[in-house]
């Protein structure tokens, strides 16, 4: 039963990733694209955690934590870039 639920969840998250990519490509303005990238990294964390459950190992959780840390800094940097026209101040 758990395996079925796991596969259904992976399918749903993958579909979510595809929808994010649609917004990333279409998104009329730059903030929409950054928002899509922000959602993409959060979904990537979900996929890594699901992969860890599937394979029964906790080795990948550090990678997920790493993506959470670096993704946030990346989003802040890109929002800063949009606001000032340059990344730095």
């Amino acid at each position: 039963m758990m395996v079925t639920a796991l596969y259904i969840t992976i399918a749903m998250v993958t579909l979510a990733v595809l929808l994010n990519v649609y917004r990333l490509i279409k998104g009329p303005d730059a903030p929409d694209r950054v928002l899509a990238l922000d959602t993409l990294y959060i979904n990537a964390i979900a996929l890594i955690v699901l992969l860890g459950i599937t394979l029964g190992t906790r080795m990948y959780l550090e990678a997920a934590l790493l993506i959470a840390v670096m993704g946030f800094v990346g989003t802040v940097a890109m929002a800063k870039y949009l606001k000032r026209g340059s990344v730095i101040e």
Partner: protein
Amino acid sequence: MNPYAEYAICLLLLIGGAFTLVGAIGLARLPDFFTRLHGPTKATTVGVGAIVISSVIYFSTLGQGIGIEEILITAFLFMTAPVSANFLAKAAMHLKVKTTENSRGQPWDQ
């Protein structure tokens, strides 16, 4: 494995996947940037949170101890999601992104 733990894991996984999907649907189909902002900040954060908690339950029933990494991931996501949403909203207001006709009120000019 304990059947109750298994039910809980399945339920949390499905809820998490559903919310992640709903967040992405919101991102894809809502009319303007500020309404799209609501999908990722709430639905996706809650969805990933539920998936991560199901991972905590799974590995602790396998006897591998309670994972601090999962708790750190959840805490980190819930701390950072509002900040990045706030930042993106500021950037969008600065760029004067279009809003839909039926939205009331206007962001003030900075």
